[in-house]
């Protein structure tokens, strides 16, 4: 087992601890019938994520440094996204469907799916398991707009940065040498800059749409990297879990959804 795998293993254990720490109080609230629809869905989503992590831990320890022939844990991740999306659907104040938002979500995640396929070659798996992310992102964009969580300029800058990152990723396939290294470094810096930005916004205004966006962004960042940057993105992803829990609690307290 390589040193990096051991480090990844420890990070996953830490994530498991974080997930269990948010599942227990949510289950308690469910048993006492003090939970909202959103927190029930959040709990189910976190159980899915927990199982996915446990599967990874088992796989990494039993077959270290080998690629899964078929990633069964992707079912759990896919379900987690769908369950979180169902929760967002319930929390969405404005049901207006604006076509550019659908277009943006489809194009952005579509481009990401294309990248995943180019990286892994698993076109079927990546396409099927990528589709829920389109729905999830669409709900997030709608929620952030309708709740006015970010100023218009900030939203525009974030969208441009996200698009630039995808374009740079594609450019990596046709470049090499020094130019390739520069693009790669730019991608890394941009991804972590956006992560920090959304992360800070999530801490400032622990709204369900912002914290879920932070979580999604860190997941996409994890898919973009390997090695040490993957672990850094995973750390950010772990930090997003308590933030999401806090926002779910806030949502329960602030509205009458039961």
């Amino acid at each position, binding site marked *: 087992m390589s040193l990096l795998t051991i480090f990844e293993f420890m990070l996953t254990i830490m994530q498991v601890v974080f997930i269990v720490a948010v599942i227990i109080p949510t289950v308690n609230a469910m048993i006492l019938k003090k939970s909202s629809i959103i927190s*029930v*869905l959040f709990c*189910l989503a976190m159980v899915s994520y927990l199982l996915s992590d446990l599967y990874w831990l088992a796989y990494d320890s039993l077959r270290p440094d080998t690629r899964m022939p078929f990633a069964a844990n992707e079912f759990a991740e896919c379900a987690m996204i769908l369950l979180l999306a169902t929760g967002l659907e319930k929390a969405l104040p404005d049901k207006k469907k604006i076509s550019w938002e659908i277009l943006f979500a489809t194009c952005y995640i579509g481009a990401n799916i294309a990248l995943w396929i180019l990286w892994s070659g698993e076109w079927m798996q990546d396409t099927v398991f990528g589709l829920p992310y389109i729905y999830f992102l669409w709900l997030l964009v709608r929620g952030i707009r309708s709740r006015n969580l970010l100023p218009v300029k900030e939203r525009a800058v974030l969208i441009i940065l996200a698009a630039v990152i995808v374009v740079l990723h594609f450019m990596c396939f046709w470049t090499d040498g020094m130019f390739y290294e520069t693009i790669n470094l730019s991608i890394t810096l941009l991804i972590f800059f956006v992560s920090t930005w959304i992360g800070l916004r999530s801490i400032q205004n622990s709204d369900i749409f912002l914290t879920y966006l932070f979580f999604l962004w860190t997941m996409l960042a994890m898919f973009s990297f390997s090695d040490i940057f993957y672990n850094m993105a995973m750390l950010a992803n772990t930090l997003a879990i308590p933030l999401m829990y806090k926002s779910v609690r806030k949502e329960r307290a602030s509205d009458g959804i039961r």
Partner: protein
Amino acid sequence: MVYAENVLICIAVPLAISLLFTKRSTSRFIASFLVGMIVCLLSAYISGYFTLSSGYSAEDTSIFLSPIVEELMKFLPVLFVYFVFESNPQEIQPNAIGIGAGFATFENCCFILSSGAQNLAYVLVRGSAVGVMHLVTMVALAMGLRLIKNYHLFSLAGLLGVLSLSMTFHGLYNLLVSEPGIPTYIGYALPMVCAVVLYLIYHEINQQDEEEKENKNFVKTGE
């Protein structure tokens, strides 16, 4: 070689006849048990087909593909019962348990016929691990359906979520027991531990329901 179809007929015929002489709730359980056994056979066919068509080894198929096929196949009859008979969530539970028990029983029968039943300890472990695992996934599935129904969330996302939970749990079990040593022991213990946890949650939820009913009755009587 095991003639699984013949084994199925042998076990299924007395159960099918018993349906004629049993009352509704019992016959529902027996019918679910029968469906579980048939589903087990169909799952074996489908997994066999995938082994041939995907080029995976038998071990990889059992670790990565079988959990998906088996859980999906067990889930379909439960959905059928739910949508066609419009059962309430509490009524789904015996059906789901029957399907899980039937599936596990038939799988164990075939396994024992193919590899022998001389070693009692191994047979006991097999029964309390795989057998319980199929039950646990079905109980969890039924509880999940009950939960999403209670919150009026019977959506595609909810259904897929609950299904994927059982798939991943099954996949985790198969992965653990595929490696000899400590992982196997953890794998064998996993279904029992989950059964206890599920029982506690189930018991707690039922107790809360009972208390709520009592409170409602008390208010009505008071009025």
